[in-house]
């Protein structure tokens, strides 16, 4: 099990990174901090002994998604990049509602009691995952493939420039 200090450091950094994402005015900075937050999440997965997920996280999110986002930022750049990520008029009301939600969720969590399993994580975690994905959960897995295909086709259709 992970020591509390590690957890708090990882969690603290991740939260700070996330806060930076939403508070900075420069979209590029936000995007970079987002990568940091994703890495923090990957670290959390590691603490939870989900190594494969951590790898996926880094690869897909920190890699692919971040690149996509930067890509998007580049494409949509207009005006001053330093003023590219401003707040809307929901700055306060959005905050209140987010905080309210947080209070509700956290207070519910605090009232929960869990029967923590004493079992340990099996050695062949990744193998088990593979078996599950291609066995019991083959339907979602296959559908996910179709979903990606659809998303791909869709992204192409929509993003492709119309030349008439």
């Amino acid at each position, binding site marked *: 099990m992970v020591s509390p200090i590690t957890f708090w450091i990882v969690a603290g950094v991740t939260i700070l990174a996330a806060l930076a994402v939403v508070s900075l005015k420069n979209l590029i900075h936000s995007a970079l901090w987002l990568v940091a937050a994703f890495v923090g999440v990957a670290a959390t997965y590691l603490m939870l002994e989900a190594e494969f997920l951590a790898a996926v996280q880094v690869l897909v999110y920190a890699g692919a998604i971040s690149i996509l986002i930067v890509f998007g930022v580049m494409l949509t750049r207009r005006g001053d990049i330093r003023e590219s990520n401003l707040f809307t008029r929901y700055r306060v009301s959005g905050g209140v509602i987010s905080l309210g939600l947080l*209070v509700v969720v956290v*207070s519910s969590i605090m009232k929960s009691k869990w029967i923590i399993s004493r079992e340990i994580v099996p050695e062949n975690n990744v193998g088990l995952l593979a078996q599950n994905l291609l066995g019991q959960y083959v339907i979602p897995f296959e559908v996910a493939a179709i979903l990606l295909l659809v998303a791909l086709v869709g992204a192409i259709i929509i993003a492709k420039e119309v030349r008439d």
Partner: protein
Amino acid sequence: MIQFAWLIPVLPIIAFAVIVFLTRRMQMVSALTAIVAMAGSLIIAIGVLVQVFSTNITIAEPVELVVRWLEVPGSLLIEAGVLIDPLSSVMLFVVTSIAFLIMIYSIGYMKGDPGFSVFFAYLSLFSTSMLGLVISNNYFLTFMFWELVGLSSYLLIGFYWNKDSASDASKKAFITNRVGDFGFMLGMFFLFLLFGTFNFQELSVAIPAFANKTLLTIVALLVFVGPIAKSAQFPLHVWLPDAMEGPTPVSALIHAATMVAAGVYLLARGFVLFESAKTALLIIAIIGGFSAVFAATIGLVQRDIKRILAFSTMSQLGYMVMAIGLGSITAGMFHLTTHAFFKALLFLGAGSVIHAVHTQDIFEMGGLAKKMKTTTWTFLIGSLSLAGIFPLAGFWSKDEILVTALNAGEIFGVPFLGPLFLTLGLLVAFMTAFYMFRLIFVAFFGSEQAGQEAHESPISMTFPLVILAVFAIFAGFIGTPFTDNGFAAWVYYGHPHLPEPNYFIMIFSTIVAFAGILFAWIIYGKKAISAEKLAVRFSAIHTLLYNKYYIDEAYQWFFDKVFLRIADGCRWFDRTIVDGIADGFGDGLREMGARLRFIQTGNLQNYALVIFAAVVIIALWLAVPVLGGI
């Protein structure tokens, strides 16, 4: 013949249908159809009359012929039935005979009118209604025909409907009668409620046994509202003078001889009810007496020949009503019979005059006696009969009413009533004689008017005059105090009261009548006293009388200023309040929609906020009872 009695009202309606659907374009055929049908009814009526008097049919033991007309099991049975007794058979004879004569008269009078055929159709319709009213054996059927005579009257008064005055008058007549029918209907319903039947015979058994006299009085008075309107008694008399807008034969038949007498007939027919409620009877007598005087005073100053006769009719009807109110259907019905003949005669005479001079104002006539001999003589006979001059028909019947009036004190147990009603009667007799002879002196014997080309009417018009004059002279002999087994022995309530000759009244009433004639002669014949000066001298009274006590104006005011305003208020309320609330509700909903649409701001973050706010709110809502607060 009695088994064919039902044909009496049916024949005219067949004539009506034939004229309306087939012969409308053939005027003479239409007239003949109507007259032949009427003649058939007359013959049957005579046959019935003869049979009734030759066999032992009395009012207490009549003959009834019925068929089922409308039935609601266990609740209601209304029969279409005929009731033949001396009362109805006499009335049938009177109606059929006068209707027959008036139809003949109308051939001449209506000649050339575009509505000739329709006129005869209407007359036939009227005859059916009137005869049905007379012959029916229950209140319900009577009521139906009662309304139908109202309809015929409406149609005939409004015969010249392109004249506004005529259509106004017809409407007024119908509506006034409707008010009366309203009361009649209530009374009739009460009878049904109390006794479960409309049948005259069954009621005549049941009513005397009924204990609650107060209730009976109310019922009787309600029923009496019908006759008040139909027989033009105060205060529902306003329609009758206006009804003179109709063609003169109509005035003669409907508004003098028969229909207006229906009220009196109903009082006689339903007498058991009134007899059982003495208070009601007294009120009837008072209204009758009052109307008699009231109408007579108005008649004194009118200028229109038909209006004078109309007020005279009203006055005489008051006489009859008073007689019945004083407990004598014999007197009432007797006067009804004689009055029918001589008043029809007078109206037809008036019609003959109008036909000749084309005016109705008696002061525009004059010297007609020389040009229209038959008319003058018959008119004179009628007037004398009406004035009650011995030995004409009117004398005997009026005499019987006065005798009844004298005995009024005994009936009600109030001694002074006798002299009171007698005085009323004599006063009316005086005024009657006065205004009739005022008419005669002015119209027939006055100075000739320049440029008037009056000449005698055709034979079809004078023939009925002569026949009616004969009746006006001799009809009274069936009921003189010296006649055995006469009218009083046939038409009576309870036991026959054969009248004793009362010479005091005979003489006194004759004196009063002659006084009236003399007075009229002094003013209008000899012109010893100037009528104009009198009118100026008593201008207030004269104006009041000439304007019929302003009762029409009062009603008109009530209708225009109260009734229509209420109606207008209702309309306003309906459109503004009732509809306004409904429309306002609809508008409110629409308005709400128009405002609510702005929650859809188009901003997606706003939408997202709403979603999450809702989540928080729902969670808090659940948290309150479940978590005991967060």
